[in-house]
């Protein structure tokens, strides 16, 4: 341990701690911009400058280690003036059209300028070259707003291991972007949107579908239905001043109805449906592999709900594509069922029905546009909104969100179980699948406390669990005594590590859940900013609480799903399921 004094306060910290960490441990705030928790500090922005007695210059507290006896002044006149000047310089090259900027409510640069009392920008100077990149379905990049803090570079390269964004050029003309500062469509990008979630300003945002959704709602010839992903309800409240982890399912439902949606449905319904299909698919693969000794039954099987992961596999791990479940994601299953089963029920043609999704995700915008996602004969999902866009629409509709009464979702596609809720959390799809698969095989409930598989909860990058199958039903006797081994990864960087372990033979599993974003969908690229681990954990708890509040907590108990099979689909993996609910993947050349 070493001893430092910050703002006159004696602090003891572990060796190797930075000044910023020491200050934080003592409750002393230092403004930061480029800093990201748990990542190597880049020291790019200089917003965290502090004065250290005896040091020749001011130092960046995020990247300066503490030394024994160090005396630090965070708020000396010199440090304050320097930080203010740094922010002024950032403002001088930032295209600050704050009134109309998408980030005007949560811009970190605007907040810093305000906190520092900047009321005039002394520096005229040149602006960065403007380039608006609208080349991809999910994301928009506006270089004129970029302040080159490089947070997006850190998440894209270190967290996700994709590397679509990197500093291009040098000096003032540096552009943070894809190769040679061209368009994102020209490089490998999985559209996860972690860059958009982490950007402090309006330089990277989702590609908005708000206008298209209002146009559909205003068109009297269209029936417009909405599906909401489970992760939304644990995060939307943050946009209206609720603390992270506040569940707002009921208010959200009322808001959507008041905005003019003809029916408010739940992606959870399709999540339960996914479990029926995916659970059966897993058991079928196990049977083919263990009983029929069929070499083409690819194990481990991977989940396929996360479209960023799908693209990641298509680009980087084409050899694993056979291992991906052929199940479409819940969003796309919902679209296909809504435009066939539900459209028939209400006597509408698929083309007169508009399906809008609210997703925590920017990659879902890409997924909805995949050419094969038209099983109903029309686009299965027409428009995808992020959680942030829904919040904006609620404000545009002049709804006092916090005052709204709780509403209930509509039948039949609004009914769901707790197993569907937990799809939002890392480990959740696995747990939901185990709840159903175990019961199919043994006829008994999953033998874990409160149905939660503890080893696969939480924020460790790669998690593992195993489950011994005993006293099976006669039809599944081939699984008697089998130790079912599962793994869960979230964040594509972690996923890459897991895949390499499997490829080298250092690990083997039967079933693996992959979610693209850290924490799972609750940490998605379309969720309210700013998402750090403390926020992730609160959202995760909220989702488990939502699950526990449900009477039905296993997908196969969902009566609306049972009815769908009875009236329309037949059985899991049946002919109609195959047509509507399953898909294929293709290797893509890295760009």
């Amino acid at each position, binding site marked *: 341990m070493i001893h430092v004094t910050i703002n006159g306060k004696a602090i003891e910290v572990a060796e190797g701690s930075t000044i910023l960490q020491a200050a934080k441990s003592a409750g002393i705030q230092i403004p930061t911009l480029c800093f990201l928790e748990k990542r190597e500090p880049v020291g790019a922005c200089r917003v965290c400058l502090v004065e250290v007695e005896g040091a020749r210059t001011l130092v960046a507290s995020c990247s300066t280690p503490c030394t024994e006896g160090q005396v630090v002044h965070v708020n000396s006149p010199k440090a304050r003036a320097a930080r203010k000047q740094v922010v002024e310089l950032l403002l001088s090259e930032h295209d600050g059209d704050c009134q109309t900027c998408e980030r005007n409510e949560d811009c970190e640069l605007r907040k810093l300028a305000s906190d520092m009392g900047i009321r005039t920008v002394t520096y005229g100077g040149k602006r960065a070259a403007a380039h608006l990149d609208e080349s991809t379905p999910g994301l928009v990049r506006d270089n004129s707003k970029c302040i080159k803090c490089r947070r997006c570079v850190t998440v894209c390269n270190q967290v996700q291991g*994709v590397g679509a964004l990197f500093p291009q050029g040098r000096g003032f003309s540096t552009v943070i*972007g*894809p*190769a*040679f500062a061209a368009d994102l469509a020209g490089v490998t990008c999985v559209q996860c949107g972690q860059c958009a979630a982490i950007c402090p300003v309006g330089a990277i945002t989702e590609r908005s579908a708000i206008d298209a959704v209002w146009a559909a709602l205003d068109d009297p010839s269209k029936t417009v239905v909405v599906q909401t992903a489970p992760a939304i309800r644990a995060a939307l409240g943050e946009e209206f001043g609720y603390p992270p982890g506040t569940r707002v399912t009921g208010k959200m439902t009322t808001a959507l109805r008041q905005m003019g949606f003809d029916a408010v449905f739940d992606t959870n319904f399709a999540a339960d449906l996914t479990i029926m299909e995916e659970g059966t698919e897993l058991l079928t693969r196990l049977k083919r592999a263990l009983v029929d000794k069929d070499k083409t039954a690819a194990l481990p099987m991977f989940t396929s709900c996360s479209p960023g992961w799908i693209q990641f596999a298509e680009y980087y791990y084409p050899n694993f594509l056979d291992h991906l479940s052929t199940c479409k994601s819940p969003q796309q299953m919902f679209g296909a069922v809504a435009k066939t089963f539900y459209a028939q029920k209400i006597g509408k043609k698929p083309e007169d029905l508009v399906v809008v999704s609210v997703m925590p995700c920017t990659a879902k915008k890409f997924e909805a546009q995949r050419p094969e996602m038209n099983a109903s004969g029309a686009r299965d999902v027409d428009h995808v909104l992020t959680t942030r866009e829904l919040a904006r629409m609620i404000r545009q509709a002049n709804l006092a969100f916090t005052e709204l009464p709780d509403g209930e979702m509509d039948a039949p596609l609004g009914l769901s179980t707790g197993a569907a809720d937990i799809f939002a959390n890392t480990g959740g799809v696995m747990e939901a699948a185990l709840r159903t698969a175990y019961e199919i095989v043994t006829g008994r409930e999953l033998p874990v406390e409160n149905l939660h598989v503890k080893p696969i909860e939480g924020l460790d990058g790669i998690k593992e669990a195993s489950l011994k199958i005993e006293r099976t039903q006669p039809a599944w006797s081939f699984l008697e005594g089998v130790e079912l081994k599962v793994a869960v990864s979230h964040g594509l960087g972690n996923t890459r590590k897991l895949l390499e372990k499997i490829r080298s033979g250092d690990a083997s599993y039967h079933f693996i859940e992959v979610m693209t974003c850290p924490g799972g969908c609750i940490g998605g690229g379309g969720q309210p900013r700013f998402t750090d681990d403390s926020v992730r954990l609160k959202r995760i708890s909220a989702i488990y609480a939502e699950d526990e509040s449900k009477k039905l907590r296993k997908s196969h108990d969902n009566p609306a799903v049972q009815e769908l099979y009875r009236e329309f689909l037949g059985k899991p993996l049946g002919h109609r399921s195959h047509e509507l609910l399953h898909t294929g993947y293709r290797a893509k050349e890295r760009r």
Partner: protein
Amino acid sequence: MTKTCTCACAEAAPDEKELMGRLEEVLAEQKDKPGGLIPALQTAQAIFGYLPENALRRVAQAFDKSHSEVAGVVSFYSFFSTVPRGKYLVRVCLGTACYVRGGNEVLRAMKDKLGIDVGGTTPDRQFSLEVGRCFGACGMAPVLMVNDDLHQRVKPAKLGELLEKYRAQAVPAQEAKP
């Protein structure tokens, strides 16, 4: 930097397979070395005369890096070029010493004489123009380099003469050295 191609592609095409083959040899040698990327790019540029996109993508793949990262390295260093260069690369120094002794006037005159901008190549593919950032010859400012030849105390009015010498020769002349 754009993908604008100023080269005579038809001429270069027959060689490409052979050049890519040579690139593979370099990559086999460099790809597992820490810090091997920049040497590999330098050698690739020597092979192709510049860094064509397909070569860059191959380099990125071999080093298991993203195209954006490799492009970031290439665009950071002014010695790398993603457009084909002329037989003679003219680099006019704009370092501090050259700048105060008229480097900018030399550059302006050079642009006029060649009819190209910085980063450009003449239509006959004889000359490319770049800006240099100090060649360590400040005592002789303003200077410029043509390939490996250093020209000192350059006067804008004498540039025509200087360029003619190169035009007249098949290979860069050693005696042009001061």
